[in-house]
């Protein structure tokens, strides 16, 4: 095969990828430039800090105004197509200050996808989760799983992709030299790199599935009734509160079919004491889209 015949193939492949992105609507929007984003971000941060000082001086109405302005500026950056973990984190902080726990948690969760190693983020998210009314709700992955598959939780999607690409390039270099040099030890290196690459690619696929394939949502209303069917005519099944997290299974008109993990008291007695054991139970139902913000 001649090089001349490969170059058109390369362009065709790139065109195909570009086309798929356009089909997804990702490149159709005009994005905010980095300079604009930085300017807005710095301005919003300044307003947030002013709000904190006003809160300290008990000037709450003006503080709330500053927080609203900061929120709008953060939202402007994000709707402008400029997405960054710091912006989501700071936006989560402003929502937390304004008492909107659900939106704060949503934004912390979004930030966590970009900054999985941020200790500050974990602390704020934990605090926000502890402040929710439905304390038994738990969608956290067990710590043992996080330790075993540490790379999956230590790296974000892009970092994992870069690791995979680096390994792929390294593998190709090894293959290239193995064609030329015929060195026996290269086979072992090839097996090692290809094994690691396999693991990384599978992990990347899993991460993409978990973050994009499964829709997670957070309740952003103070109280939300989960019904047996997609409509007001169905009876309420149970209710969850601001900040509760759910997994969206399906949607129909203005309704989401969700399931949530709720804490239930173990044992037959209905009047259980505070020291009684509790367990998790998965309950599903339908709730209106306006009550949920997807992560």
């Amino acid at each position, binding site marked *: 095969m001649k090089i001349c015949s490969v170059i058109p193939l390369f362009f065709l492949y790139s065109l195909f990828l570009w086309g798929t*992105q356009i089909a997804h609507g990702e490149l159709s929007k005009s994005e905010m430039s980095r300079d604009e984003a930085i300017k807005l971000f710095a301005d919003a941060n300044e307003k947030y800090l002013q709000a904190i000082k006003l809160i300290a001086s008990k000037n709450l109405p003006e503080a709330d105004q500053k927080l609203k302005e900061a929120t709008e500026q953060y939202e402007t950056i994000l709707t402008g197509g400029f*997405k960054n973990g710091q912006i989501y984190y700071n936006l989560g902080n402003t929502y937390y200050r304004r008492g909107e726990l659900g939106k704060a948690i949503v934004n912390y969760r979004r930030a966590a996808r970009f900054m999985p190693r941020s200790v500050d983020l974990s602390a704020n998210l934990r605090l926000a989760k502890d402040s929710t009314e439905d304390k038994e709700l738990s969608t956290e992955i067990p710590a043992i799983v996080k330790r075993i598959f540490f790379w999956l939780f230590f790296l974000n*999607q892009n970092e994992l992709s870069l690791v995979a690409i680096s390994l792929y390039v390294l593998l190709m270099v090894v293959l290239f030299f193995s064609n030329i040099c015929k060195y026996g030890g290269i086979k072992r290196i090839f097996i090692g790199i290809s094994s690691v690459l396999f693991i990384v690619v599978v992990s990347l696929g899993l991460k993409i599935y978990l973050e994009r394939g499964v829709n997670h949502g957070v309740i952003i209303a103070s109280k939300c009734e989960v019904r047996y069917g997609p409509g007001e005519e169905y009876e309420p099944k149970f209710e969850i509160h601001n900040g509760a997290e759910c997994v969206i299974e399906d949607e129909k008109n203005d309704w989401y079919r969700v399931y949530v993990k709720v804490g239930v008291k173990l044992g037959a007695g209905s009047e259980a004491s505070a020291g009684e054991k509790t367990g998790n139970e998965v309950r599903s139902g339908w709730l209106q889209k306006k009550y949920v913000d997807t992560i």
Partner: protein
Amino acid sequence: MRRYKFYCCILISVVIVFGHVGKLCAQDIRLTATVDQNILTLGDQLRLTLTIHGTQDTAPPSFPVIEGFTLLYGPSISAQTRNVNGVVSVSKGYTYVLQPAAKGKFSIGPSTVEFEGKMYSSQPLTVEVVDKSRSSDPQAPDLEKLVFVELSVDKNEAYVNEQIILSFKFYFQKGLPVSDINYSEPTTKSFMEEKLGDQRQYEEIREGVLYNVLELRTALFPMMSGELAISSAKLKCNLIVSQRRGRNTSSDSYFGDAFFDDFFGREQKRYPIERATNAIALSIKPLPEEGKPKDFKGAVGSFDMEVSTKTQRLKVGDPITLSMSVYGEGNIQTIQEPALVINKEDDFKVYPAESTTQITNREELIRGRKVFSKVIEPLKPDLKFTPAIVFSFFDPHAGQYKTITKEPIPITIEAGEQELPIQLTLSHDKPALAKRQVQLLTEDILPPMANLASLRNQGHPVYRNPFVMGCLLIPAVAVIASFMLTRHKERLTSDVGYARTRRAHTVAKKRLNGALSALHQHQQGEFYSCLSKAISDYLADKFNIPPASATEDKVIVLLQQRGVKDDIVEEVSRSLTDFDRRRFSKDSGTWDEMEHSLKRAEELITKMERQLS
């Protein structure tokens, strides 16, 4: 070398022997009489052993006066030398076997022996001869007499915390093989215990019978007054008795010989034995209130005290370590710190003492030493002495309290420098602060992030970037290309047919260039030769056949087999015929015709290249 070793051995032996001789000379001489049983039946035999301890160089002891027994045989003489922890003891035994002649109690009179002009005599014994065996099994030993245990204390009345020696003795007749000894200690609630030394092992004569004794000793310290009890101690063991194998006693006259017993072996029978001692009741008196010193802290025993200090010249605030050593008999562990007699509270800063306990003797009684290291700091420059030290204890032998007072030690104190805030130890007056958990005062979210340098758009995943994904093809293409190139090179060197096929077109072009140059030089024969060779050699390379065998007929057949179009095959045939004809005839054609032939050959080769590739 061997010679030196020999002399060394002799020298060492002489030293050992003479070293022991001194000890032998110092040993007491005594004569003992023992029997193997003091109650026996008329059918039994009595073994009387007269043992001279301390020497083996004497005449046999006189045979005692014995009523009611007849001498069967004896004496059989045995000499014994024992070395226990370097102490050598010697003895010589004379054993007589006696047959009782009548029932009743008989006394065995004292035996005498003379050694270096002195007469030594044994103690008299009493032996009872009864009518018949008390046991149903005549071969079974009288276990009650053979093995027994005793539990005793050195005193039945004592004061609280006074040392009491509890002794457990396990007696078993000398020579009895005892195994699997399992000792259960007595329960000593309300006492503190300290083990006294290792297990003791010695011999003791009881009612004329020689026993081996195992003794375990414990020091007890009663912790409360009143009637206290020590429960019984228990011991389990197995007594191994050799018996003849189960043969008919009537035939024993012949086989009962010791020779046959040794030859066929004796049956070893294990008799499990369990023995329990009596419980012991102790009367423990409280310590008298009368005469109790103020500084008395519960020490009971016989003690003394030493006090010392390393530094006697110091500055204000410098620490002095007083070493107070209390030693003696009694419960060393529970000795409390001696008291300091401080006249004014602000004279010295006193720190808690640290103590170390050392038990120096555990053989007879608990003796030991407890050393208290107490740090004091003189707070005034005009102090001349350390505080006096007082230690009080109750002496149970004297039945009264005693107080040891150590006079103050003179010290010289210089004016001190500024006190450094170094804390050595904590005093009782100022107890250490209790550790407590750090409590969160409030909980709040952490501040916003403002790292502008890292503020980049993370919204586009790398795997969706068409440029990046396109670039991923480059290394793959490079690898495939390198693979193909390597393979091509390998085939060129290893596969001749492949190499000829690959280069056929290039070689044909060269020949056509040769034809062109021949054309320019007006060499008609050479021109047509080059054209003919270009086509025939091209086909020879393509079909991997020798150039000489690439005749017109053969190449046409091969072209047809390869499925080349008929018009091309015909043109090849026609061209080869035409070129050969013109090559050897005078009618080589005009310049234009030759140019046309060259062009036709070029086109033909190109067509064939397309068809045969």
